[in-house]
């Protein structure tokens, strides 16, 4: 079992483990479409992306939220997460490398609120969000 995490050991300003994802590939978008059921052609058909002025396919926003969720539950076990929310700020394309970072912003008793950010290889913000967790205490 993974080491237990206690609210006593967490302080405002603590950073979460950084998650660097492998470059997004087009097959991953097909897999994500099949898994999620989101077959919007903007994510699958480069001709559609070009026709609406995006220059090609863009990744599902929810795939990038999935990366952010992965980073979140790498830091804090899923069972302690009470709220998780994101704003979609930028578009992600095949080949992009997404990095997710997090920092503890608030702590009150055994509850913590952490801010999360996903950025691409150019430092452009793709997602800004946060989560709230209720942790055990010692």
């Amino acid at each position, binding site marked *: *079992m*993974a080491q237990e995490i206690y609210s006593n050991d967490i302080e405002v300003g603590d950073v979460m483990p950084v998650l660097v994802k492998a470059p997004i590939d087009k097959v991953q978008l097909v897999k994500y479409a*099949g*898994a999620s059921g989101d077959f919007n052609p903007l994510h699958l058909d480069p001709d559609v992306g070009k026709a609406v002025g995006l220059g090609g396919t863009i990744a599902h926003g929810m*795939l990038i939220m999935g990366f952010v*969720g992965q980073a979140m539950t790498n830091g804090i076990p899923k*069972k302690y997460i009470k*709220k998780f929310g*994101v704003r979609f700020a930028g578009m992600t394309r095949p080949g992009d490398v997404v990095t997710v970072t997090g920092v503890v912003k608030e702590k009150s008793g055994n509850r913590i609120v952490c801010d999360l950010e996903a950025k691409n290889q150019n430092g452009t913000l793709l997602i800004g969000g946060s989560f709230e967790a209720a942790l055990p205490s010692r």
Partner: protein
Amino acid sequence: MADKSLIGIEFPAFTWEVERGKMHELVQAIGDPNPIYSDKEAAIQEGYKDVVAPPTFVTIPAFWSGISTVVLKALKIDYARILHGEERYEYYQEIYPGDTLTVKARIVDIKTKSGKSGDMDIVTRECLHTNQRNEPVLKSITVTVERK
């Protein structure tokens, strides 16, 4: 454009059976190797009853049930002009394979905002997910932005 008279409208509830395989497909596509989503023994070791639904799991019933399309059509929103603005979850209980979720969708807000590239309609939809014991397990809040 979104029809503002539909603020508060509730859509007919639908049910969704949670499958182990769909959980695995989602985390495979994301590339999340956390074993609590795919390995029952590992999940039990970590204090769960079985593998658990990953944080963004309810996107699966939202799309595969067709409710997302039903909502867009009811609001007369042009599919080609929408962007996903925000997604938020409140977790009340874990979701496990074999659970039957009942999902009730409701439009909680529609507003028009002026942006740099013109007006936008911002639609907020809430979906309450309850399990087969009628216990609330998750609330999702989805904000879509329709460019005009």
